[in-house]
């Protein structure tokens, strides 16, 4: 394995999904009390793509894509020239038994540490998975890993019992801010006690799920802003890892407009909603977003002024995988370095 010093880091892939080779492999890492419990597998079972969940590059005979470390390193670092990658393992959705949810997170973090983050010159960095429904368990998990320099963020599901500005979660965000760890929000894998992926229930087809479910990010973002979470915790950073930057500005226009009329109901939110983005909010890139015509994309991103919030994320090994050279071609030349690595280096203090 080749090594790289941090000053050499140019391309950072902020979203790579490692997975267990077999669904049951997690049992070896579960705390004793949970080893006989049942819970969903890693595959999202309501919505799946016609040709499978994974990118052609990632399929290998007899192997779950994203489960073989050597293969992932070769695909990301070898074939695509990425320098560092942030691993974001998905968990199994919300569990009715929130302690089981935390046990799954504990097992996932231990597995990630042992199987993916060890080794001289390792170019992966990890995410601390926590169950937001179990605050005590989440805080314990954060304390377990926060001092480990290989772990660079906390990761939580897009699916939640409340919007994330709810005070139920404040202790988790406070711990994240105190440790200087960004919080990544990503649609989770297997469905536990899940919610409809749109505001109007269950769409029938995968096309609706794939293109629209990630818009739920905005309800969390609006809640975090208007509940004054960023006023209380100015150091807190959220990363919406499914993406959403393409649709962000029109949604912020609405929020800003309504805020000027109704802000007296939420005085804890002291500033114009859009003014928090630069300090507190980032988005991963997604191949599924933006105009299909690339020339228009540069113009659109420019108009939306969203370059500064973007972190390149390949989403390997999912079918929506986007190699760095494809993303680079979609960006105006002056913006490439920041999106492909500069913003992530700053956010995760990688250099």
């Amino acid at each position, binding site marked *: 394995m080749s090594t790289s010093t941090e000053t050499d880091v140019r391309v950072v892939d902020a979203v790579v999904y490692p997975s267990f080779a077999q669904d049951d492999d997690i049992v070896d890492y579960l705390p004793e009390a949970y080893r006989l419990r049942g819970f969903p597998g890693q595959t999202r079972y309501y919505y799946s793509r016609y040709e499978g969940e994974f990118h052609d590059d990632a399929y290998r005979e007899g192997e779950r894509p994203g489960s073989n470390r050597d293969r992932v390193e070769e695909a990301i670092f070898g074939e695509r020239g990425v320098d560092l990658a942030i691993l974001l393992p998905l968990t199994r959705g919300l569990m009715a038994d929130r302690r089981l949810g935390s046990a799954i997170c504990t097992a996932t973090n231990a597995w990630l540490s042992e199987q993916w983050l060890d080794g001289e010159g390792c170019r992966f960095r990890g995410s601390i998975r926590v169950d937001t429904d179990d605050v005590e368990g989440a805080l314990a998990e954060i304390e377990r890993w926060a001092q480990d320099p290989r772990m660079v963020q906390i990761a939580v599901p897009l699916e939640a019992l409340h919007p994330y500005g709810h005070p139920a979660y404040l202790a988790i965000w406070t711990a994240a801010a105190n440790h200087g760890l960004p919080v990544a929000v990503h649609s989770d894998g297997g469905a536990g006690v899940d919610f409809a992926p749109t505001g109007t229930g269950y769409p029938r087809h995968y096309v609706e799920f794939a293109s629209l479910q990630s818009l739920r990010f905005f309800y969390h973002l609006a809640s975090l802003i208007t509940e*004054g979470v960023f*006023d*209380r915790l100015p150091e807190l950073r959220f990363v919406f890892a499914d993406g959403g930057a393409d649709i962000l500005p029109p949604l912020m226009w609405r929020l800003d407009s309504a*805020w*000027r*009329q*109704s*802000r*007296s*109901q939420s*005085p*804890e939110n*002291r*500033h*114009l909603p859009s*003014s928090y983005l630069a300090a507190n909010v980032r988005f991963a890139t997604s191949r599924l977003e933006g105009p299909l015509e690339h020339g228009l994309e540069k113009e659109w991103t420019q108009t939306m002024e969203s370059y500064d919030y973007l972190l390149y994320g390949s989403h390997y090994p999912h079918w929506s995988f986007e190699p760095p050279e494809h993303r680079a071609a979609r960006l105006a030349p002056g913006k490439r370095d920041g999106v492909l690595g500069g913003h992530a280096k700053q956010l995760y203090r990688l250099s």
Partner: protein
Amino acid sequence: MAEYFVGKVDEFPPGTSRLVPEAGKFGVGVFNIGGEYYAIANYCPHQGAPLCVGHITGTTAAGAHNDVLWQRDGEILRCPWHSWEFDIKTGKTVFEPTERIRTYAVRVRGDDIILDTARSALEQAA
């Protein structure tokens, strides 16, 4: 003409307001807040609503535990169209980024309250 007779002091108690329709381009509202007089253009800088039709009210602030406190009662004017909040004393929006209504000077001459549209409230204070 820059001076307008607004009313007699004893007919214009604290907590009340008057519109001087002939003053300025859109009329000027004059407000008595705690015995001091303030005047602002009857024109919202957002979309031009007749601002002085709006409610005279207060505004909120976050308390130590994010409880909602009521403040500055009688000093805030809410636009009748989109509820923007203006500080009557300064003409500025309560929120950022600040937008501002034009303000005017008001003085008392004997028993008469006089609006002076040639000067702003800020100039008067200076």
